[in-house]
């Protein structure tokens, strides 16, 4: 303790070493997010006859550290739209606050919130594109699920660069490699959407989450799942991946620490 109040409560340099002052930069150019910090992994989504289902796990990683294990990455917007967030969690919380303010403003208006999932997706992709054009990106890859203006099931993706695309089944991050092939096999292009039931879609998502938990090192067996139908949103945020079988693990050979 000394007589300089500014120094009280701070780690002492003689004990902890000098603080890296680059984090307290006061001069030089203005800096923006150039990499994400706390991140969420895959988001997966499937359209089915009369609706859309979306799922994420509940993990927020700090690099390779499983930092927060109870983070809800599916956010509800209005009556029947859901956004699933992958990427930076703080940017997710910022966007969520942005969407909440829009929802509140819409609800105070005379017509109520009439924004559907398609409108929401257009808005989000423009926010992403504007921020990337300012070199100050929101480091996320999101899936938006709900209904379009014609009342048809809607599922679309938007990412930090403002790139958008839509398909009957989508996945972000690791899911793009692991979940999409499973979904494409279960629901091939030739199979019309009318032949995919809600139960089949949910089962498929659970199967994908399980495969992701097996193979994605930044994933968790606790997950959230949202099912959007004409009856509204059924959001479950504390689910557990069931009937795991790690029997395959001992047959995995050929890389890693194994020598034989």
């Amino acid at each position: 303790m000394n007589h300089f109040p500014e120094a009280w409560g701070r780690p002492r340099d003689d004990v902890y070493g000098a603080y890296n002052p680059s984090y307290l930069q006061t001069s030089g150019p203005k800096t923006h997010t150039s990499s994400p910090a706390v991140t969420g992994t895959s988001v997966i989504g499937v359209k089915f006859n009369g609706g859309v289902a979306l799922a994420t796990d509940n993990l927020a990683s700090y690099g390779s550290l499983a930092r927060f294990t109870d983070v809800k990455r599916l956010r509800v917007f209005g009556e029947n739209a859901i956004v699933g967030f992958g990427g930076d969690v703080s940017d997710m919380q910022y966007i969520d606050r942005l969407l909440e303010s829009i929802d509140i403003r819409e609800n105070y208006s005379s017509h109520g919130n009439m924004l559907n999932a398609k409108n929401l997706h257009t808005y989000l992709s423009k926010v992403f594109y504007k921020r990337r054009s300012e070199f100050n990106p929101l480091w996320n890859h999101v899936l938006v699920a709900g209904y379009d203006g014609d009342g048809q099931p809607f599922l679309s993706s938007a990412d930090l660069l403002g790139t958008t695309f839509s398909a009957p089944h989508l996945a972000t991050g690791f899911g793009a490699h692991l979940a999409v092939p499973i979904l494409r096999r279960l629901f091939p292009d030739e199979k019309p959407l009318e032949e995919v039931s809600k139960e089949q879609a949910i089962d498929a998502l659970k199967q994908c989450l399980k495969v992701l938990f097996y193979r994605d090192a930044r994933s968790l067996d606790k997950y959230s799942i949202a099912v959007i139908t004409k009856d509204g949103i059924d959001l479950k945020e504390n689910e557990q991946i069931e009937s795991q079988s790690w029997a395959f693990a001992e047959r995995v050979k050929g890389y890693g620490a194994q020598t034989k």
Partner: protein
Amino acid sequence: MASLLDHSARGETVGYSFSQAAAAPVKQHGFYPYTDNGGSTLGITGSDFAILAGDTRSTSGYNINSRMVPKVFKIGGDAETGEGAHIILSVVGFAADGNALKERLDSIVKMYRYQHGKRMSVSACAQRLSTILYQKRFFPYYVTAILAGLDEEGKGALYSYDPVGSYEREQCRAAGAAASLIMPFLDNQVNFKNQYIPGSGEGHALEAKKPEPLPQDHVKQLVRDAFTSAVERHIEVGDNLQMLIATKDGIQEVFHPLKKD
């Protein structure tokens, strides 16, 4: 006593880390604002029509994002259906920039109609598109655009661009991932490059076959052949072929399946 009140001197005398901020090294940021979404486009004109075509695959790296993301757009028509449009635009490269460019040009062509009470000519639209691209000369729209429609005489008009707005009117142009595969085919089949009239002479006296406008059915077949061939040799091209045909009766849109592998 004076030294106790002298706050400014403390930082230097005590040497706490928070006073050293000015010495911090400048950090570089590593955010790259572009990506390549693959795909290819192609445009050919005839005497009374213009065709713009593109595949509908969207890629990032080795992943297929979606099998149905159209790259060819009607400009200046109804927002949902595109009805009433007379100009077509194809964009290939970075899809987010492509969309932004499409929406800007679309609203400009619409505003022109509201302000002047007549349709914007294709040549005026072509010049305007060049200006839009050049306005972002130092942070370009990373796309290769092709604009098509009918000129004032009712002939097919096609303008091709580079990302910063250089443009020229041409008979045909291929752009995007498989441009280098399709363009030589077009040179040969549309502009009859390296084709000579048999028996017209020996060596330099050999007479070159003169290019002339092709009939619509023939051009459609050329476009389909060009894409089926490109799909075989380029991994970023495939899924579906989207074709927009501008004639005096308006714009017709057709889709054909391509290989999905």
